[in-house]
């Protein structure tokens, strides 16, 4: 087996092995655990960077193992995969540091970090899958390994929510599986091919549409399309690092990423447009965007508000790729990264605040801005990004989506964008206002002693780092290695010629 074949596997295994070893360490051996874990992470990040460089200069990484008749287990790195991969691997490192601070004195850390690493491995697998079959394997694995994280607190409420989580995601998986099997029967191939595997001659349009509906319906659960979204706000019962990386990024993105793959590399944008299936997806996404925002307004619990905001924001990705245009595809794909980083920032902030001074509700955030200016500053960056204020990352995505929608002849999308912007403002600005200009409602519930920094440095620094990223990747979006630049690379290299222009 050559290095090029092995590399994708190594990327997945590096985190999985580290996590696996951790399961068998006693809970109190935190130093050993941390070093193994961080070692795994650094190895993984290094491998990913090697791969990134290779992909950039045009190398091929592919691992193919036959598994079922006519179906291979296929790992394949390409530009799109790298985008998701680098997002998950990079944020994983920061989230780990954050988690170490977050769980400093909590029980069951070995289990937590173990499953956390496995989740990241599953995410890497999702990114690197070369066909829908492999994708599905990792997609379901992700469901499984995130379940213990959702119920990590092991309270009756957590268990109840864990059950809901599993039923929703497994239900979605089942539908997706039905779609994948049908696709295999119809097309005989599940591979992701630039421009689409399907030619449209395999079966009647009605069947192709039905399969598309199954695929999107299945992926839509993780992507949290309304009305399949209610697991996401509920899953906020998990510890904050989980909410941040997994439910803010990995799990929902798995759905969104799948939708990108299905539309662009299974059906191909032309066939999808011909079948008329893209518009319903766009409408569904738009509805989700608006519904999520409206629900977010009425949430007093900060994490819930952020969760509904996730519901809303993730659908921008689906919206972008389903609009059949070059620019909005770029915008949607770039939003994959942008939304991830912004949402991680916001969740980190929420976690820092809850951990440091015990404030979890927006209505009680008066004066937080004065007590924790850095944290709230980071929150401000993240929320301005979500609103789409330039030069934050969110603006860049919205710009591409909007301009692309016009170019693609779908002006109604502008209305969606604007409504979402206004609604985002309505639910984010009060948070900022209350925390910066409001008066404290009383003593903080459980204030940790004020150290040199306003909070535990392991919590604070990753937060500031991601907040800085929100700003930088927006500001330097024009750079060719920025997420946007990479998204353009994807669109131009992988899906070239699919678009009319």
């Amino acid at each position, binding site marked *: 087996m050559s290095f090029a074949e092995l590399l994708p596997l190594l990327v997945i295994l590096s985190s999985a092995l580290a996590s696996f070893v951790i399961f068998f360490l006693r809970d109190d051996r935190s130093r050993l655990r941390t070093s193994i874990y961080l070692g795994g992470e650094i190895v993984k990040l290094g491998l990913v960077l090697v791969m990134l460089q290779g992909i950039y200069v045009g190398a091929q990484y592919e691992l193919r193992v036959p598994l*079922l008749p006519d179906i291979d287990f296929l790992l394949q790195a390409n530009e799109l995969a790298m985008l998701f991969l680098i997002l998950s691997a990079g944020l994983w490192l920061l989230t780990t540091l954050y988690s170490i601070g977050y769980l400093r004195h909590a029980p069951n850390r070995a289990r937590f970090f173990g499953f956390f690493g496995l989740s990241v491995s599953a995410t890497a697998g999702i990114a690197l899958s070369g066909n829908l079959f492999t994708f599905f394997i990792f997609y379901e694995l992700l469901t499984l390994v995130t379940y213990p994280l959702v119920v990590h607190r092991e309270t009756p409420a957590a*268990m109840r929510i864990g059950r809901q989580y599993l039923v929703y995601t497994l239900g979605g998986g089942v539908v997706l599986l*039905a779609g994948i099997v049908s696709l295999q029967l119809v097309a005989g191939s599940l591979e992701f091919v630039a421009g689409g595997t399907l030619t449209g001659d395999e079966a009647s349009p009605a069947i192709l549409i039905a399969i598309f509906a199954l695929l999107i319906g299945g992926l839509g659960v993780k992507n949290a399309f309304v009305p399949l979204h209610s697991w996401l706000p509920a899953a906020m019962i998990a510890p904050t690092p989980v909410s941040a990386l997994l439910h803010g990024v990995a799990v929902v993105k798995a759905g969104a990423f799948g939708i990108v793959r299905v539309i662009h590399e299974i059906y191909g944008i032309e066939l999808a447009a011909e079948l008329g299936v893209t518009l319903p997806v766009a409408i569904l996404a738009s509805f989700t965007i608006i519904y999520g925002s409206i629900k977010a307004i009425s949430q007093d619990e900060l994490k819930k508000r952020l969760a509904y905001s996730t519901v809303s924001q993730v659908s921008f990705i689906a919206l972008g790729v389903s609009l059949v245009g070059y620019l909005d595809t770029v915008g949607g794909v770039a939003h994959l990264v942008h939304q991830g980083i912004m949402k991680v920032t916001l969740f980190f902030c929420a976690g820092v605040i809850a951990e440091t001074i015990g404030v979890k509700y927006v209505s009680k955030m008066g004066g937080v801005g004065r007590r924790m200016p850095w944290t709230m500053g980071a929150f401000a960056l993240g929320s301005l990004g979500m609103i789409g204020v330039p030069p934050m990352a969110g603006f860049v995505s919205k710009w591409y989506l909007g301009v692309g929608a016009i170019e693609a002849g779908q002006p109604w999308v502008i209305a969606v964008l604007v409504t979402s912007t206004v609604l985002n403002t309505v639910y984010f600005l009060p948070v900022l206002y209350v925390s910066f200009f409001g008066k404290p409602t009383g003593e903080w519930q459980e204030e940790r002693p004020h150290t040199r920094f306003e909070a535990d440095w392991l919590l604070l620094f990753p937060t500031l780092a991601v907040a800085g990223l929100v700003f930088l990747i927006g500001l330097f979006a024009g750079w060719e290695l920025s997420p946007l630049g990479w998204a353009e690379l994807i669109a131009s290299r992988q899906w070239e010629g699919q678009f009319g222009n």
Partner: protein
Amino acid sequence: MGLIGSNWLVVPIVLPLATATLAMLVGRRSAPYLGLLTASGILLSVAAIGLTVLEEGTIRYQLGGWEAPLGINLYADGLAVFMLLMTAIVGAAVSAYAVGYFTSRQDESGRVAGDSGDRSGSFWVLWMFLWASLNGLFLSADAFNLYVTLEIMGLSAAGLVTLERRQSALSSGMRYLFVTLLGSLAYLMGVALLYGALGALDLATLGELMYPGAATWSALALITLGMALKTGLFPLHFWMPAAYSNAISPASALLAGLVGKASFYLLLRLWFDVFDGGLGPGPGQVLGLLGAAAIVWGAVMAVRQRRLKRLLAYSSVSQIGYLFVLFSLATTASWGFDAWSGGVYHAFSHACAKAAMFMSAGAIVRSVGHDDLDRMQGVGQQMPLAVAGFALGGVTLMGLPPTGGFTAKWLLVSASLESGQWWIAVVLLAGGVLAALYVLRFLNPALIQVKVGPVARPATQNLEVTAFVLAFGSFFLALLSAPLLALLRIGTPFASVLLVGTP
């Protein structure tokens, strides 16, 4: 090579028989070691048989050199080896588990049982007989030998259920005994009719001579009835929950994992090798329909249970449904092999997973002293490995990748969609979600943390480890799909389909 290779076939039958006899003689002290030794011997021989079959194709062995119809013929094709392998793996795991199980002084209800050593000895004898009969059943090439192995299997299985001297165990064992005897008699009646009509017992010969007629139809009906009873196909599963849940846990693991699969295997073998696909599409449809109903009904009832082992028993009712679905799918059409191999693959993965789950459940029940689901709080804290083993097994039941359940489900769903019976696909897929529900029925209370867990009970470390290892191993069964499916292709009744179907 041929001589040595085919001689291997005898080992998995003779070795446990010999051990059983020896175990009666040596007593309870050394019986476990004998058992473990046998288990490893069987594993070895099965591996050897498997390699031979993979290399050289099917093997036929004539015991003592006597030819059919008088002599006893052994026959190993891909399917038989597959089942042997399943039995060897699960059997070895259960053996290891049993060693730990019987060294502890207390029985499951927590009372000190004076006769536990006694039971240990009987367990090993019965289990070795059972193993011999299972291996014999998989390797038999004629209908009457199948009856004999079936009876030995039924009797030793019923013996295992009644090992426990509790009223509930005895009465459910009794009921099980009646059912299994009735099933065997129905089967024997069918064989008698077949012999009357065709004048042969060798399966291959029967298959060649088969014609539709009153006798063969009746034989089919009787054999189906017998095997459906013994496997516990809905709605004839009435004996199953009690038998599985009241037996001691190693026995439950064997019953649910292997015994049910053996009678299913028998039906499968006769259905496609002898009856040429059930003499027409009709009967298969009935079984498929009942299988689909079983999936739903079993799962619904499993969710409704209040006791852990009954939950597992009903889960078996549901999972057995997956096996029978293949009868309505596996025809000579291009998807036939998919359906057939999917069902068989499901048997394998379910055997491993369910055995592991029963083993975990046994460890838990032993440790906390009851199997009341509502009082499982804190178990996850106390016995993480057992709960993890249970959960991993549960994932197989849900049919998620990378477990074997996924491969099976993929193949079955694929076949059902291809054959146009999409409603079966719906049931199969919904079954996975229902499985998640009943697995959570246990996990939900078990994972809840409590300040003070249930009082520490006897150490069950070994039991937990065994259960976990089996569950963990079976978790990755989908990754072995390619070699295992290649094995199944050898001597499959769908060879003609394969030539046409797959490139």
